[in-house]
């Protein structure tokens, strides 16, 4: 028997991304401990685990020791789950163990959780539930001071859940984000499967992550995965670069919207690729985006432009200035321009909304201007993950993506975006200011073009009412990319050229 034959079958959870992280879901018929600090979305997780089951036609039972049933119903309505409707449909039952309004029961002598067990068994049998959530263990310990009894009784409960054959989730509190698994040593009796939810303060921003610590007897993805909580979706886990492996790439060429640039790229951009345009402010990135979009529209493609730096009005005005009628294109239905300011949402939310917009509009090409503006709302690590996830998503859709990045310095330089994205993008086009003889000119070069020959020269380009015009190469000049252009006398250039000349 091979190990895969012996693997415990898993239950698809229905929580976006969780099946990916757990490689198929939670072990069927077992209990999984979901541990997290205060505010780490444990209750949302436990509700969503059941709600996703209800959506798939299963039934669930939720044991709540902490929040009142009314509070839970109300709180999750905003996330899109109508628990009362599930209850009316006999697909959802609460076992309400939340504190009584009239105060705590006094304890005199020995006791067990026989009544709780009987209620859970009853609820499972009348609904035919396959999923059970228990929120939370910490609340039990704080209500019943005799921790030895509580520990024994919870152990019995976990055992009973297993006997019932239900797949269950039990939440527990943690004090530190990176410390012991849970308070009260609860992992001792639900040791088989552990998931950690984190809500870490990083560079003044909250960053939620989920980590599968162990799933006994079965494989899972390692490490922390960022997630966000969205109205209508609940927890949405964002899988990272691991999707990369399945991506196809084709050699279909498409126009960049600029003939001269197409020539520099060896005949156009590749369809299933991500192109990074990098340059300082005002070098012509937005123009390149505009031409890229207009070039697609001219070919009858559907194009999506997502702006994070300028408003719709500004983008439309820019386009008009270069002779492109975005209003008309949008009215015709092939163009969609969506703008939002980075500060309106977290980086994870932006990623999810970008994906949703792409899924909904189904464009042939998408442009994002600028990606680096989103750096403002993310920690360095969060941004890196965002860029990785976004570029793999775009490539996965088999569409052409053009993203821009604003360099921090006017001359030369590199932004964080570039260092994260450069290995993931198929092509990189650099736009640079070139200061020569008291004059600022613009230079452009195709730095990288995966799978194709491309021109290596740095060419001067100009911008006028007709858009971008690529001109001659900067001859006899070195140091443009580093931001220190130096004019080299022709004789020197010749001599250097001869160093490498053929014998």
């Amino acid at each position: 028997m091979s190990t895969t034959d012996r693997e415990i079958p898993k239950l698809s959870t229905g929580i976006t991304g969780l099946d990916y992280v757990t490689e198929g879901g939670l072990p069927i018929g077992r209990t999984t401990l979901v541990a997290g600090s205060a505010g780490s979305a444990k209750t949302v997780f436990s509700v969503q685990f059941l709600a996703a089951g209800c959506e798939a036609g299963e039934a669930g039972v939720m044991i709540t020791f902490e929040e009142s049933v009314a509070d839970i119903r109300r709180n999750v309505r905003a996330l899109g789950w109508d628990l009362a409707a599930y209850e009316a449909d006999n697909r959802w039952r609460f076992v309400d163990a939340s504190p009584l309004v009239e105060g705590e029961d006094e304890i005199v002598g020995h006791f067990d959780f026989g009544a709780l067990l009987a209620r859970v068994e009853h609820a499972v049998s009348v609904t035919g539930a396959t999923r059970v959530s228990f929120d939370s263990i910490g609340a039990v310990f704080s209500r019943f001071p005799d921790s030895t009894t509580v520990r024994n009784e919870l152990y019995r409960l976990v055992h009973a859940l297993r006997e019932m054959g239900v797949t269950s989730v039990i939440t527990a509190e943690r004090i530190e984000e990176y410390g012991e698994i849970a308070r009260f040593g609860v992992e001792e009796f639900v040791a088989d499967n552990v998931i950690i939810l984190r809500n870490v303060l990083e560079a003044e921003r909250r960053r939620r992550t989920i980590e599968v610590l162990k799933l006994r007897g079965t494989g899972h993805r390692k490490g922390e995965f960022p997630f966000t909580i969205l109205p209508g979706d609940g927890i949405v886990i964002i899988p990272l670069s691991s999707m990369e492996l399945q991506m196809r790439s084709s050699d279909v060429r498409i126009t960049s919207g600029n003939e001269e640039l197409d020539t520099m790229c060896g005949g156009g951009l590749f369809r299933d690729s991500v192109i990074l345009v990098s340059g300082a402010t005002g070098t012509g990135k937005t123009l390149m985006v505009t031409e890229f979009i207009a070039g697609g529209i001219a070919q009858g493609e559907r194009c999506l432009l997502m702006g994070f730096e300028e408003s719709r009005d500004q983008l439309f005005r820019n386009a008009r200035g270069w002779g492109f009628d975005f209003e008309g294109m949008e009215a015709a239905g092939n163009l969609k321009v969506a703008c939002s300011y980075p500060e309106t949402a977290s980086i994870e939310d932006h990623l999810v909304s970008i994906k949703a917009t792409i899924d909904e509009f189904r464009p042939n090409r998408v442009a994002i201007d600028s990606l680096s503006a989103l750096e403002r709302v993310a920690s360095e690590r969060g941004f890196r993950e965002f860029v990785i996830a976004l570029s793999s998503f775009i490539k996965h859709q088999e569409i052409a993506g053009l993203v821009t990045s604003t360099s921090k310095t006017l001359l030369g330089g590199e932004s964080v975006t570039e260092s994260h994205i450069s290995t993931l993008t198929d092509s990189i086009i650099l736009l640079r200011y070139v200061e020569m003889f008291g004059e600022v000119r613009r230079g452009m070069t195709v730095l990288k073009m995966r799978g194709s020959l491309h021109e290596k020269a740095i060419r001067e380009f100009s911008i006028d009412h007709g858009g971008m015009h690529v001109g001659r190469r900067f001859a006899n000049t070195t140091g443009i990319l580093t931001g220190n252009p130096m004019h080299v006398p022709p004789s020197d250039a010749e001599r250097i050229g001869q160093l490498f000349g053929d014998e």
Partner: protein
Amino acid sequence: MSAEATHRFILYVTGRTRRSERASSNLRELCAQRLASGSYEIEVVDVLDHPARAETDRVIATPTVIRTTPLPRRRVIGDLSIADQAAHALDLPGLLRSVADDQAEAPR
């Protein structure tokens, strides 16, 4: 059920275990010592037979005794093995005179 009862109790237990029996006899003894005979009623509910009732009364632990009359309700968890504490938790009156006398004589 007599209408005259001044005290009514529901005792939730799980099965006929020793703990269930102990809670039941402790409660009966408490009542006998502190309430006039015929003035109280004790109903024992087995959660294995009546889980829905446990749900309605939101009982978690067994044994749990709920004093339903007089209001307000009083709820005590455990086998009531410490009589004074149990009596206090259930807000029962002091020992009946005859019981108190017996106990006062007992050491002799």
